[in-house]
């Protein structure tokens, strides 16, 4: 029977985590009762700073760590009691974890030979998988003779050759340079879509999460802070932590002083007034943080009349050229620092320079109210 990986569309697994916890023997809580669902064929990124529990969660799914409590369901069946090697998963590691003593082909063939597949078929399917990652020519090399990108592609071929329904990725591209990483990200996405694989990805790199994943789960201190589509999380972070972890935000601590329909009026700790028309769940008097993305701030020379409710003057401390954008750092009276980015093409003649005072304005519908910290 001839099996062709690229032909065979797999229906990716449906993954559910229910109350999944890991408490280490010292009493440290690694993961604290998280619930999460991944749809078939979906790419989910677990994003967070180191120590947030994302890797522990991934390793619990893989079976490399035994959960202290909770369930891991794949297509509705619990796999918690299944040993690692019976879970039929694929996994990519940050350092590729290729078997140094086996040729590229043998690395790829490993999973198949563990599954007792006939020899001829192993050879055929392994070569097929290598063709898929465009490394067929290097089949007889040893891993040490390959570049980092090639090694990770071998690892990918090794992980998908036995057609797992779920692919786990542990910071898979962290060791590659930026260019290679970007092309690998696209390659991975394409391959997953092609194969219909479900993927769970662990990363601390928000850009990677945004590029690769359909949905992002931001983790913090063993819990999931927010889950959602990449754009949704970016545009509507629920906390200052998420707002700052995904993209850059100007964060200003404030208090809600009044509400009028869609319009919330806030007063910053320095006494300035800010208007927001975005939805949020806070009540009058709540201490909150206001998040404004740098690209939503427009700058005008000092003294120009305010064009909206949200307007602040600040002293330019730095102007940094970033290729397409110019990042302007300003300090407002009271000490808060702001960053705003303006497209280089739009700067015209009047470019803010250090030492000048400029006026910042931003729309109320881009003023996001999030919980503090």
């Amino acid at each position: 029977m001839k099996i062709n990986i690229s032909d065979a569309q797999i229906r990716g697994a449906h993954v559910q985590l229910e109350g999944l916890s890991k408490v280490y023997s010292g009493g440290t809580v690694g993961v604290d009762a998280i619930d999460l669902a991944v749809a078939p064929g979906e790419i989910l990124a677990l994003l967070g700073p180191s120590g947030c529990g994302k890797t522990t969660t991934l390793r619990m799914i893989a079976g490399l760590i035994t959960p202290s409590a909770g369930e891991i369901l794949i297509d509705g069946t619990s796999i918690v009691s299944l040993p690692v090697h019976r879970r039929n998963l694929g996994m990519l590691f940050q350092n590729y974890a290729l078997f140094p003593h086996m040729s590229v082909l043998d690395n790829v063939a490993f999973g198949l030979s563990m599954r007792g597949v006939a020899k001829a078929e192993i050879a055929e399917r392994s070569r097929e998988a290598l063709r898929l990652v465009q490394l067929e020519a290097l089949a007889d090399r040893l891993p040490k003779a390959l570049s980092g990108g090639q090694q990770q592609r071998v690892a990918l071929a090794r992980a998908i050759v036995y057609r797992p329904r779920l692919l786990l990725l542990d910071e898979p591209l962290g060791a590659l340079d930026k260019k290679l990483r970007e092309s690998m990200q696209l390659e991975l996405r394409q391959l997953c879509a092609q194969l219909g694989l479900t993927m769970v990805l662990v990363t601390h790199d928000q850009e990677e999460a945004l590029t690769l994943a359909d949905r992002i789960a931001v983790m913090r201190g063993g819990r999931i802070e927010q889950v959602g589509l990449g754009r949704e999380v970016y545009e509507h972070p629920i906390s200052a932590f998420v707002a700052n972890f995904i993209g850059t935000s100007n964060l200003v601590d404030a208090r809600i002083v009044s509400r009028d329909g869609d319009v919330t009026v806030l007063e910053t700790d320095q006494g300035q007034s800010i208007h927001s028309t975005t939805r949020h769940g806070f009540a009058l008097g709540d201490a909150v943080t206001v998040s404004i993305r740098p690209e939503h701030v427009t700058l005008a020379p000092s003294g120009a009349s305010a064009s909206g409710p949200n307007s602040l003057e600040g002293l330019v401390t730095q102007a940094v050229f970033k290729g397409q954008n110019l990042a302007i750092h300003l300090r407002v009276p009271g000490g808060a620092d702001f960053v705003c980015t303006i497209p280089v093409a739009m700067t015209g003649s009047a470019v803010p320079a250090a030492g000048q005072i400029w006026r910042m304005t931003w729309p109320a519908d881009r003023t996001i109210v999030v919980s503090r910290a």
Partner: protein
Amino acid sequence: MNVAATPTLPRIEPAMLAQLLRGKASGVALVLPATAFLAVFFVWPVLQMIVLSVTQQRVEGVLIEGWTLDNYLRLFCNDLYFRVLLRTLRLAAASSVVAVLLAYPLAIAIARGGPGLARLVTITLVAPLLVNVVVRSYGWSAILNNAGALAYVLKATGLSASPPALLYTEWAVLIACVHVYLPFVVMPIATAIGRIDPSVEEAARVAGASRMMTFLRVTFPLSLPGLAVGASLAFSLTAAAYVMPQILGGNFSPLLGTLIEQQVLTLSDWPFGAAISTLLIIVVLAVNLVFIGLLSRRFSRWTGGAK
């Protein structure tokens, strides 16, 4: 740099050490003391001993000088020495194989176990090394003899009414040799396993390999450099052993080491003792070279060239 900040170091030293860290001739300078030391205090005296075996022989209890090959002819004229040589090789090989088999679980416990387990295993392996081999051999004899601890336990627990006679057999010698040389096998294997990236093993398990298959296909092959060192140590040390065959073998299974000791201490036949020693050295050296050569060539193909 402020001199006052490092008052204990004389000014000349950094330059000297810089010299040591770089440069090619310095490599030679660093190995020279040890090489010279061994040349003078090891190679030279041992060569003198070997020369003895072709320049002297004992005839009817009296030393005769002059070039001779008789000491070596004697080795081949009597099948006793051939038998003992075979036994020595067999026992040394068995000892290193058994020691390697037992060493793996212990080495894995050291390299991959928690700190508590690793500590327990290391201490249990190393601390007994301070107790003299003779005492440990008598310890085994107290366990293995037919009125000993093993028989006592077997009888008391009703497991066996007539325990097998182990003392004064080659088995007893093998048991004791494995016991005494096991730590020298465990340590290099543990070091080798410790050097294997754990994620490589994890990758194997995720790819569908059971713990056993992961060990056989990944951990074991990657630990071969440690195995080579440990097995060759166990082989060499067992081949030259003479205490265990005496005490536990009841002298029924002498090894070349036993014969050397006998020639030297009982018969004062140094030339013949030196001839047996030369035979032993050559055989052990040959086995080591072949064994280590095979393994390391294999292994350097996998991992070498990285540096």
